[in-house]
């Protein structure tokens, strides 16, 4: 029998020192480096960062759906309700996937099976996690889910190609929510959608989250979506969290030079400016991360100390975490 080790004094989801590596062409890609974060029930944590920062890898590690070949979790612990998911057997893990923890994938065009009816794809999750074999009941639940996400139940028998992008994404959401998960991993759930449809989908997710007190990890690169939806925010750069705090702290007092640069690069909707302020340079090659701070090659505040050894988390004035040893110089430079 598998021994379950349950710690009770922990937050709902707690990730400690997670490190994930991929192997590619004989080189090691350092996708996630010592990521730690916590999430409580009913709250939403935003993971923000650019392409290749490791956001999706973190979410996939929680569900343990990283590809078997070529990737491995080198270090770390992931506790859900005090239970270390990385220690569970594959069998136990399968009971959690889609049930207690589920994921909304980024691209609704490829996340659905094109040769199965959409309703059956929802019913599949329900029946997998149900203790009976009552097909009619599972179908009923699937129809209920369709109605919840705003699709008439009679569309149960339609195929994905008969749906628009927004409707497909709703089906993906219906699948993710069919078993009332405690934790929802939403990987860029609205990136492929138009803004008016995005507004509908975000409202839908918020409504369902409030109703079922679901915890949500929202992965996005859109600061506007974060501002609308999240309670806390973790900014990821080159596989590390470089700034971590409440939404108010991050948006009012961004402290890491990268976060400040990220906000500065977005065209302002309220002010006219002749030129934008891009961050110079490019994100580092994850097979060959720079020594010390991984942002130092692009950072105008970088000193020799930044390039030497790994940088720890520092507390900023208002008490949120920032992985920058020049934080005082940065704050002065900003004022």
């Amino acid at each position, binding site marked *: 029998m598998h021994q379950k080790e349950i710690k009770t004094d922990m937050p709902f989801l707690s990730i400690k020192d997670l490190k994930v590596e991929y192997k590619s062409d004989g080189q090691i890609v350092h996708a996630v480096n010592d990521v730690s974060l916590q999430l409580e029930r009913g709250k939403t944590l935003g993971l923000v960062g650019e*392409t290749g920062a490791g956001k999706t890898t973190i979410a996939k590690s929680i569900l343990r759906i990283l590809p078997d070949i070529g990737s491995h979790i080198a270090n770390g612990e992931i506790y859900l309700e005090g239970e270390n998911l990385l220690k569970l057997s594959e069998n136990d893990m399968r009971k959690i996937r889609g049930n207690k923890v589920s994921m909304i994938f980024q691209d609704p065009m490829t996340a659905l099976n094109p040769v199965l009816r959409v309703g059956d794809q929802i019913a599949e999750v329900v029946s997998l996690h149900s203790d009976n074999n009552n097909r009619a009941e599972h179908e009923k639940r699937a129809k209920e889910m369709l109605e919840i996400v705003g699709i008439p139940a009679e569309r149960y028998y339609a195929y994905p190609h008969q749906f628009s992008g927004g409707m497909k994404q709703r089906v993906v959401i219906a699948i993710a929510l069919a078993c009332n998960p405690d934790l929802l991993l939403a990987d860029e759930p609205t990136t492929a959608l138009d803004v008016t449809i*995005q507004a*509908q989908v975000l409202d839908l997710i918020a409504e369902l989250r409030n109703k079922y007190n679901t915890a949500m990890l929202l992965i996005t690169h859109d600061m506007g979506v974060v501002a609308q939806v999240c309670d806390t925010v973790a900014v990821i750069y080159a596989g590390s969290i470089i700034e971590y705090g409440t939404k108010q702290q991050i*948006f009012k007092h961004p402290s890491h030079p990268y976060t400040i640069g990220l*906000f500065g690069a977005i065209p302002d909707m309220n002010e006219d400016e002749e030129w934008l302020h*891009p961050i110079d340079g490019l994100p580092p090659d994850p097979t060959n991360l720079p020594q010390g701070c991984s942002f130092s090659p692009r950072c105008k505040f970088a000193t020799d100390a930044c390039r030497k050894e790994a940088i720890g988390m520092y507390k900023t004035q208002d008490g949120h975490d920032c992985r920058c040893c020049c934080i005082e110089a940065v704050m002065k430079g900003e004022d």
Partner: protein
Amino acid sequence: MNPVIEVTNLKKYFTTPRGMLHAVDDVTFTIERGRTLGVVGESGCGKSTLGRTIIHLHESTEGQILLNGKDVTNLKGKDLRQAREKMQIIFQDPYSSLDPRKTIDSTIREPLIVSRHFTKSQIDQKTQELMDLVGIDERLRKAYPHELDGGRRQRVGIARALALEPEFIVCDEPVSALDVSIQAQVLNLLKKLQKEKGLTYMFVTHDMSVVRHISDDICVMYLGQVVEKCSSKELFQNPLHPYTRALLSAIPSTDIDKPNKREILRGEITSPVNPKPGCRFAARCPYANEECLKLQKQEEVSPGHFVRCCRLQEISSSYN
């Protein structure tokens, strides 16, 4: 007044098994030299088709296109090739719009060779100038597209479009595949080039903050039609068409103190196949009534501000 592009009643229909798809329906506008017209709308509204039809990647169904006052609507063969030197396009996806088997150098060089205007040494020199102009390192000259990141690839696309010194460039979502920090680099480059060379842009995008930043004038498209057209400033200060208002209110704001006052639209974009004569937005419009089923005319509500909505008078009083 020095218009580079004048488009009058342009239509582009595609024949599909289900009927006529009205991708671009009766679009009229002019773009002055050195200015940027932003075209915004959601996927499937015909904004890319419009850009491609203007530079003849699609044959237009009806209407007229003038380039520097000269009719280029039905050009063919050699005349078309000459006209095309003056109008270029930068494509949306820097991953699929470059030939994976050509080096950066030969991609940029190709239009110069095809034009037959230059000698070998002129081509060498021009290629070098173009690479410097868009900021691609010399060491990447012999690199292949897969070795470059999205931002650099898009710079190659820009260099290729600039090779024959065009006057008019259609920018078809040139930054939507890029991260914000890289997006800002490319937008600055496009703006700098416009200033230096007096380029005229038609900038197609779905990102309202980008379009606001780069455009002088903006057309809002919905299902093939322009529903609102005015200066960039006016559009964001005083949006009038119900669709424009919904579109603007749906953008998630990064200001956490001002939660969005959203006008959430019901339903989704309807089919552009065999559309009914009335307002195409009526099915989703919160203000629609039977009047909207009639043909809608574009009206100038204030100088330079055009709106296609018959009930504007009534409903605009309810805006706050």
